[in-house]
């Protein structure tokens, strides 16, 4: 094993270890109970916050967000949970994502530049 290989192996192992630890941390969902506490989420498109909602107060509903390019995402709120239920983007990753679960991992629709994520409470409705 040459010195170059050793250095590469060390770098790869270090990056793998760090990212594994961070992945486990990010993929640990925080249990939230909208019947007992406020659960704030924000919906952002093109760097602008469109909605700030408290899921604890929101009635079950489905609404559509249309982007500047005409593309749309359908957001569903049900029993204190939120997801993108339908969209006309080509990859549908946002729909496959399911309910918003993780603190660090927002639901993202790259083609429509849409982000749905948990946020700190308060602020305007």
């Amino acid at each position: 094993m040459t010195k170059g290989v050793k250095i590469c192996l060390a770098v790869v192992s270090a990056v793998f270890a760090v990212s594994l630890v961070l992945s486990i941390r990010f993929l640990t969902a925080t249990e939230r109970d909208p019947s007992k506490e406020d659960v704030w989420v924000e919906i952002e498109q093109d760097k602008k916050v469109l909605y700030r909602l408290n899921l604890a107060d929101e009635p079950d509903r489905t609404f559509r967000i249309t982007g500047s390019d005409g593309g749309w995402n359908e957001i569903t709120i049900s029993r204190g949970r939120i997801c993108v239920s339908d969209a006309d983007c080509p990859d549908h990753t946002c729909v496959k994502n399911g309910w918003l679960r993780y603190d660090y991992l927002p639901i993202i629709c790259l083609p429509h530049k849409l982000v749905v994520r948990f946020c700190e409470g308060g602020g305007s409705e």
Partner: protein
Amino acid sequence: MTTKKLTELSMLTAASLIVFIVELRFPDILPIPGIKLGLANIFTVYAVYRFRAKEVSLMVLTRVILGAIFCSNLSALIYSLSGAMLCLAGMIPLHRLIPEKYLWLCSIIGAMLHNTGQILAATAIMGSLAVLPFYPILLTAGCIAGAFTGICAQLILRRKLKTDKE
């Protein structure tokens, strides 16, 4: 470029394109954008060790552009393109440093660079850091997938070198 080389490169491009399209039909392992095995990269890693930088780049560029056209997902082209370019920019100089015996290591680094390129492109397009938390997850998955594709490429290369000798 000799005819033999041209034919070999075209064959590799076609084969990787087929693998790429077939892999799109697989169900997603995780509902996280960007995570996949990247089986088409078996051909990329193999080509890095067998052909010159220009030839490999041509092959990968053709595969990425045709792949995006064939699955009519042109908006994803920018991510695969930036990923593939960064991956090649790292793997081509590295393959001089890393002997064939450790090809899988080169493949892992390539996969990590591919993920880095994708995240950079996504950050630039979104104009926000919202995608950044996905980076360690992509890297972890990229390491595993890169090791797998690397081992596959290593087996193919070993067999090819053996038949070349005979």
